[in-house]
């Protein structure tokens, strides 16, 4: 890939990322497509999110409980598990699961439409592929990923509770009182702001990769893999940047 092609790709990605969310404010709005995508991204991902979250909550609780037990501080397991899940692990783990399931699905579906000339047909009929195909996927991801994160966080906390109450044999009510204590604006905001950004990044990257597919089955494999790999990298990188920014904005000292 030469420099000119590289700049063109960055330009195309930039245009898609800007036009896609703006599309919701321009007629026609493809409500049916948005609902369909919300169903696929949200309801369709619920099971994997519940499963991943439950086991992350339990594993984290086991680790923290064992380590704090050595220090004689086992009763504070709930506090550490709660903050870790809500501010950091929950949003990132669920975003990674979302990229693996929904991002790869978006890239392969749009890639298949590219190879089958369906995207060309839309353009021939004067329909913007970004408005028709990308906007519903971006909107559905921005809406559904935060909702999934809230549900996932709650399930993780229940997983943590199970370990604390039934494996470590500590007080369950004390666990929940610690969780209640950490439910302050700063922690909730830090945990909820991230999924909006992650959802936007995953959907834009995956749709761009799908719409730039060429070269048959190998090209489709390449674009789907790139969508998941790039989304994963961007989730991890942006998580670090967002954490720095949020800590600064919320006045929390490191």
């Amino acid at each position, binding site marked *: 890939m030469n420099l000119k092609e590289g700049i063109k790709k960055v330009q195309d990605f930039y245009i898609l990322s800007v036009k896609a969310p703006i599309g919701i404010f321009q007629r026609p709005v493809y409500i049916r497509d948005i609902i369909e995508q919300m169903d696929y991204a949200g309801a369709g991902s619920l099971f994997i999110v519940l499963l991943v979250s439950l086991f992350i909550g339990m594993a984290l609780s086991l680790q923290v409980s064992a380590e704090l037990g050595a220090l004689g501080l086992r009763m504070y397991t709930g506090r550490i598990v709660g903050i870790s899940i809500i501010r950091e692990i929950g949003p990132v783990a669920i975003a990674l699961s979302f990229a693996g399931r929904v991002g790869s699905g978006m890239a392969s579906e749009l890639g298949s439409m590219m190879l089958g000339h369906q995207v*060309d047909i839309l353009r021939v009929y004067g329909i913007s592929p970004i408005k028709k195909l990308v906007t519903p996927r971006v909107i559905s991801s921005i809406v559904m990923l935060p909702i999934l994160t809230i549900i996932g966080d709650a399930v993780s906390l229940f997983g943590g509770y199970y370990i604390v109450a039934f494996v470590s044999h500590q007080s369950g009510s004390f666990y929940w009182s610690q969780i209640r204590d950490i439910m302050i604006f700063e922690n909730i905001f830090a945990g909820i702001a991230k999924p909006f950004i992650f959802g936007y990044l995953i959907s834009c990257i995956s749709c761009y990769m799908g719409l730039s597919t060429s070269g048959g089955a190998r090209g489709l494999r390449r674009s789907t893999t790139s969508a998941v790999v790039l989304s994963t990298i961007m989730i991890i990188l942006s998580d670090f940047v967002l954490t720095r920014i949020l800590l600064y904005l919320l006045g929390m000292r490191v």
Partner: protein
Amino acid sequence: MIEFRDVVLSYGDHVVLDRLSFRINFYERVAILGGSGEGKTTILKLILGLIRPDEGRIIIDGQDITVMSESELRDVRMKFSIVFQEGALFDSLSVRDNVAFCLREYSGLSEEEIEERVRALIRRLGIEDAIDLMPEELSGGMQRRVAIARSLAAGRPKTMLYDEPTTGLDPLTSDNICAMIKELSSGEPPDRMGLIIVTHKVSDAAKVADRFMYLKNGKITFDGDMKSLKETTDPELRAFINELFTIEGRC
């Protein structure tokens, strides 16, 4: 008038079209022949402004489309309709919804009127039994018919573009598709709907077209009617059109 002026297009280091120039009237019935990978489909995409050439001009109805924005190209694209190889049907929609797609998008018609139009088109193309089927349940021939019906639902184009419409079909189905293509472009110029078909199946091209172009190494090396095609002395072209002489009876 569709006019290519010194059009150059490359994919990486591979030059697909090399200073390609030709003129086609909207009402003409033209077949662009050539082997696989010679850039036949690329020509159709260039006509529709789906891709832009590296160099040269493409003039449609006096307007240079190579400098147009996506929104300006919409009016140009309305002059054409295209049937891609294997139909390019929307696989999440039924036959009815595929044909109704354009009408629902921007016709402003009521659902009853759309249904009426869709049924009329589906009847005309002989696919009534498939109206509720999904694309994956259709045979290759049926998919092409649905694609043609969907193209016509968008309005009457000046020129229909066909990308290998009979590839992968059995001879009988190919004959039916060719007959349908010819019937749609029947009538006298300049009022008739023209067609540009790109194919490597010479016998099928002979059934629907009056003018033939042969694309080789990014250039048009032959441009003429059936009589001059058969009389060509170019050994390579003669080898390419050999099937015309062997199965001429069927045409």
